């Protein structure tokens, strides 16, 4: 069974600094997708960034970037120039297939609560 592990329950970063959130996953599949979602206190789930497993290039979205290590099954999120609005719970998620069936589901890690200090 696929699992997603986030080993850092809480992290803290100073405003304008850089922070990296860790995520590892376990799968026997070669083709899958990985995501980071942000959940602020409003509880809305917001997609931050996504990575296709077949792409070697790491995804980047403005201040957010990932370090995808397929062999190590690692998918960390780097937030540069941290802002107060980045404070939230961050979830790593894995998805095996986009084409229906019982495998078509997002599997989430347990989350990392990020605090941003002014």
């Amino acid at each position, binding site marked *: 069974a696929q699992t997603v592990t986030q080993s850092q329950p809480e992290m803290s970063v100073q405003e304008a600094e850089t922070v990296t959130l860790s995520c590892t996953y376990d799968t026997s599949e070669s083709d899958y997708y990985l995501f980071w979602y942000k959940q602020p206190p409003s509880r809305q789930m917001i997609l931050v960034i996504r990575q296709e497993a077949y792409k070697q290039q790491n995804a980047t979205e403005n201040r957010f970037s990932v370090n995808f290590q397929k062999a190590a099954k690692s998918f960390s999120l780097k937030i540069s120039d941290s802002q107060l609005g980045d404070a939230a719970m961050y979830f790593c998620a894995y*998805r095996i297939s986009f084409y229906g069936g019982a495998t078509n589901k997002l599997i989430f890690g347990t989350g990392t609560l990020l605090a941003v200090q002014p």
Partner: protein
Amino acid sequence: DTAVSQTPKYLVTQMGNDKSIKCEQNLGHDTMYWYKQDSKKFLKIMFSYNNKELIINETVPNRFSPKSPDKAHLNLHINSLELGDSAVYFCASSREGEGYGYTFGSGTRLTVV
């Protein structure tokens, strides 16, 4: 326009009652889901529907019954509510063939007293 909307946002009810949560998406997505977020913030899938057909039912008690009248709507009915049902329930949708993840509703916080 809200892409995935859930109602109500908050629901407080007594043990033993029956309640429903409604979800609608205007994105034209083929698949809709219900996720449960427990008190420790862990998110777990409960159900998924693809074009009104039940695809995933993840060992959820049969007190929970999803219903999809059309592919834009997925409702969740809960019978005989128990204290342990207290959680945040998220509806989500996705389009097949596009790697954009899921779009989530804003969640329904259910409190059973």
